């Protein structure tokens, strides 16, 4: 089937505005009479609050409002799954980012000064920083329900029997870092008090409608009185799925009835914002001599920080993806999602899959080496196929791209020429290696969580269509994909499509931009609504042109007779629809396919649809310094039909670099509940000069349930590259990386016995 727009490298609809700087982000907005807000946050990682004194702040010149917990009109809590995080703390703080008071003042300087003048009396409590310590008997309880936020246990087959059948069993312990989203635009925005008593919150986020509900709950207001505009968002990556500033903004606008701006500094964003879960993973994997996996036992301890947010679902996905895209008959998979007094962990591109993929794909690499088997062959031998039972015991009914992706990577130039590439190291102390890893990534919210979408399709009198889908544009390009799919479905020129996202007034609720779901949801919502609207257009045009409806066809600017030269423009058709009293608007609803029941022991599992990706990396390690340079990465995502190849390449380029940062550099380091690196001078992200050469090879296995056969690509592109790099380091210098990020210093320590060193090992202490 050939398409006019789908599958074509259509330029981004927002490219010109963003490239020229004309685009206004929510933090760029300003209104007359606008106040500046600051948040007084906790001084301790864990303490009881004995008193809050805001008297000096209230009288500071320029201060208009100082709010504390009694000023929260509704429920003093928020959180996507459990609202266990206080809007403003009353009697206890559980991490350094906890908010205690809000200040609004005429100037940013006055607000800053006033916030400094707020004094809080504390009684410090013991600080829990390791989830394993938090589970010990006698540990201080961070929440009334205990420190275990969620415990999962999934068993299939008989894992001990499986290990009994194994010819080789390997057991390893892995640690992964607290990666930060590092979006360019920190959390912030403006709230205004509307004349009807309502509030409008302009703040970049990933789910406008859920923000609306969470704000309404805290303010005790009808959600209809809250408008949320979260578009465009200056980067999200999962970090703007949860509330950070939205309720504070709304609360201040509600009390002052004036526009209020709150925009976190990078340091405050680090302190109060979400991170990726630090996980401690114990893996025991058994395999037969011929490479067939027989057993996998996994135990995961995840540091979810002080509050729940999406910690439970994230760690469920760790369990669901712990075995990778492989058939394993006997498994025991257990996880503990544990409260600590560290920064909060929640949604982050990959959503719990990055951690287990690093561990599992390292296990696979070790097995391949110990079996003397090609690492690609070992993976192909065990890879899931459509119709297989996966390790958690459910059938993979939708498209499974593991084998196509692995096969395509095997045909890539880098893989075929890897021996030659490895021999090209330029200096005597440099060693090159090539590593491979593969992954799957569930799309959508999973079982037991209604996942839905909707689109508002409206033909305007001027002959253009409005398409409203609330999933915000967070930079990934869903707006352009929606325009392409709408133009394709409505059979019109793409210039006639205007897409609205991320605004509760202009789009119907389509859920979040998360879980690799926005293209799949939005596309299916368009497909669900378009036929009804087209039917009405056809009816109006038939009358207008005096032709039977069957003889009509759509063309880019309107409708025309199939066998005559008669045609009507969309503008004319719209006028005729009004005359006939035919509504020019359709609101569609789309329900995601979901498993009939949850997997026992793992809430939210399984997802029904999965995207796949295999990545290989060529690295060069400096054996004298331990430094790793990633020279080349090849990504082979299998994500169903590609709606926009250029968009997919952009996602894959960015994903490769993000996964590289996770492997080599990125970690928010905490000690005793305090942050050790609070901005980009010490939180090390890859720069353009660190980025590898990157090639994306697309493998398109059409997904029957997807719009035009599409699946979600946003997450899986950043996942396997991490173990591909660490496996390449092993290939280069024989150092097995089980803790990431592997900095130059850590690699050097592991290398220290290497005879290449001029001094034969580390120097003694002096």
């Amino acid at each position, binding site marked *: 089937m050939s398409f006019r727009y789908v599958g074509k490298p259509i330029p981004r609809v927002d490219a010109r505005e963003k490239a020229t700087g004309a685009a206004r982000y929510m933090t760029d907005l300003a209104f007359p009479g606008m106040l500046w807000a600051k948040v007084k946050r906790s001084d301790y990682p864990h303490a009881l609050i004995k008193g809050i004194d805001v008297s000096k702040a209230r009288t500071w010149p320029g201060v208009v409002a100082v709010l504390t917990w009694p000023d929260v009109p509704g429920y003093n809590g928020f959180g996507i799954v459990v609202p266990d995080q206080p809007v403003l703390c009353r009697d206890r703080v559980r991490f350094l980012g906890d908010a205690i008071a809000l200040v609004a003042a005429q100037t*940013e300087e006055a607000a800053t000064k006033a916030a400094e003048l707020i004094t809080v009396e504390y009684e410090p409590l013991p600080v829990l920083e390791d989830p394993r310590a938090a589970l010990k008997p006698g540990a201080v309880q961070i929440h009334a329900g205990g420190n275990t936020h969620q415990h999962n246990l999934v068993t299939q087959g008989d894992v001990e029997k499986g290990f009994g059948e194994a010819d080789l069993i390997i057991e390893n312990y892995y640690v992964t870092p607290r990666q930060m989203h590092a979006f360019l635009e920190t959390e912030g925005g403006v709230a205004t008090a509307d004349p009807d008593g309502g509030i409008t919150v302009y703040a970049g986020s990933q789910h406008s409608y859920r923000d609306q509900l969470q704000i309404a709950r805290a303010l005790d207001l009808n959600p209809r009185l809250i408008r949320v505009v979260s578009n465009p968002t200056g980067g999200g990556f999962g970090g703007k799925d949860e509330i950070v500033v939205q309720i504070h903004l709304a609360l201040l606008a509600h009390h002052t009835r004036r526009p209020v701006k709150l925009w976190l500094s990078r340091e405050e964003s680090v302190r109060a914002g979400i991170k990726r879960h630090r996980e401690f993973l114990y893996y025991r994997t058994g395999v037969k001599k011929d490479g067939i996996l027989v057993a996998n036992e996994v135990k995961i301890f995840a540091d979810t920080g002080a509050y729940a947010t999406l910690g439970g679902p994230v760690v469920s996905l760790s369990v669901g993806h712990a075995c990778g895209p492989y058939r394993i008959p006997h498994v025991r998979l257990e996880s503990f999602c544990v409260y600590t007094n560290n920064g909060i962990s929640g949604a982050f591109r990959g959503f719990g899959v990055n951690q287990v993929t690093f561990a599992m794909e390292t296990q696979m690499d070790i097995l391949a080496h110990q079996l003397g088997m090609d690492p690609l062959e070992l993976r192909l031998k065990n890879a899931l196929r459509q119709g297989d039972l996966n390790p958690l015991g459910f059938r993979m009914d939708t498209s499974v791209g593991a084998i196509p992706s692995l096969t395509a990577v095997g045909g890539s130039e880098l893989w075929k020429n890897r021996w030659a590439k490895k021999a090209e190291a330029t200096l005597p102390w440099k060693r090159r290696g090539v590593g491979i890893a593969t992954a799957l990534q569930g799309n959508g919210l999973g079982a037991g969580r209604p996942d839905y979408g909707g689109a508002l399709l409206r033909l305007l009198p001027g002959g253009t269509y409005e398409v409203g889908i609330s999933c915000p544009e967070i930079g990934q390009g869903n707006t352009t994909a929606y325009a392409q799919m709408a133009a394709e479905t409505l059979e019109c020129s793409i210039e006639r499509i205007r897409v609205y996202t991320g605004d509760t007034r202009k789009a119907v609720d389509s859920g979040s931009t998360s879980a690799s779901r926005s293209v799949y949801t939005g596309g299916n919502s368009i497909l669900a609504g378009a036929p009804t609207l087209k039917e009405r257009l056809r009816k109006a045009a038939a009358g207008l042109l005096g032709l039977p409806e069957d003889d009509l066809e759509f063309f880019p600017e309107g409708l025309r007779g199939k066998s005559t030269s008669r045609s009507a423009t969309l503008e004319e058709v719209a006028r005729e629809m009004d005359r006939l009293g035919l509504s020019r608007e359709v609101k569609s609803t789309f329900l995601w396919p979901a498993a009939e029941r949850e997997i026992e022991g793992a809430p939210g599992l399984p997802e029904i649809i999965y995207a796949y990706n295999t990545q290989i990396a060529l690295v060069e390690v400096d054996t*004298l310094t331990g430094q790793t340079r990633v020279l080349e990465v090849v990504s082979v995502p299998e994500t169903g039909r590609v709606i926009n190849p250029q968009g997919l390449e952009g996602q894959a380029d960015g994903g490769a670099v993000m996964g590289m940062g996770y492997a080599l550099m990125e970690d928010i380091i905490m000690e005793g509940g305090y942050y050790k690196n609070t901005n980009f001078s010490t939180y090390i992200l890859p720069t353009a000069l660190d980025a590898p050469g990157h090639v994306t090879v697309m493998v398109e296995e059409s997904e029957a349930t997807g719009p035009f056969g599409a699946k979600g690509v946003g997450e899986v592109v950043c996942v396997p590259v991490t173990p591909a790099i660490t496996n390449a380091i092993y290939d280069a210098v024989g150092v097995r990386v089980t803790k990431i990020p592997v900095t130059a*210093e850590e690699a050097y320590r592991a290398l220290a016995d290497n005879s290449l060193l*001029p001094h034969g090992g580390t120097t003694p202490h002096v």
Partner: protein
Amino acid sequence: MVNDFRLVRPKTLPEALGLLDEFGQEIEPVAGGTDLLVKLEDGRIRPSQVMDLSALNELKQIRLVGEDLHLGALVTHTAVLESPLTRTEAPLLVMGCRTVGSTQIRNMGTLGGNLATASPAGDSIPALVALEAKVVLASKKGERTLPVEDFLVGPGKTERRREELIKEIILPCAREGEKGFYNKLGQRNALAISIANVAVWVRLGERKNTLSRVRIAFGALAPTVKRGRMVEDALTDRELDEASLKGITQLAWKEVAPITDIRASAQYRRDMAIALLYQSLYHILFLS
């Protein structure tokens, strides 16, 4: 948050020195501002007056004076990279300046500013120390000249008095038979503060694989950029091969006294003094 201050912008060096003479205790000179602005934003300094030096065009010159190269204090790192004079006369300095921050920082940051900030990790400084550069300090009362090595007192501390400005840096031009190598280890390839770095300048000996003069400066490995005289002596006037190089460069760990911070441990840094020095000398002797 940046405090309120009075901004003065002298047009000439004498005018600037006059202002310093009058307000020396409370005035903060700013060249490119790449360090000062960070300190202002953090509130680490709260000056009542800031003197913007950007109008002092006389301090932006790169000149050849006899056998020496004179670089005005306001010469930016980018200017060092782009000047045909520095490329031929001070290639080691060019190598050092190339590793400073990013394009934007190199466009703003100056040689004088890098020296005045006196970070042990300042990337242009090891090259200056290895080249035995001198710094000229000017005040209303006159000028004095110090070796860069002596100008540096400690992290953020220099011999500059409040009433003085760095006027220029003087270094000997490169001659036939001289070679240099600058080797930086950072956490990434741009916008990286050195974990450790080393600048090596040598004069090749008459016999193959010998060096008649060697100067080595280590960065981020001691409270100031530090000369490695013991290793210099050990390397001078003897035949060097890979094995002897490996042996001699181990002396580097006796030359340095690094600290542990968020970027690296002291022990790793000390090992890197050896590794970076070995690599640098290997490049000079066997690869170029």
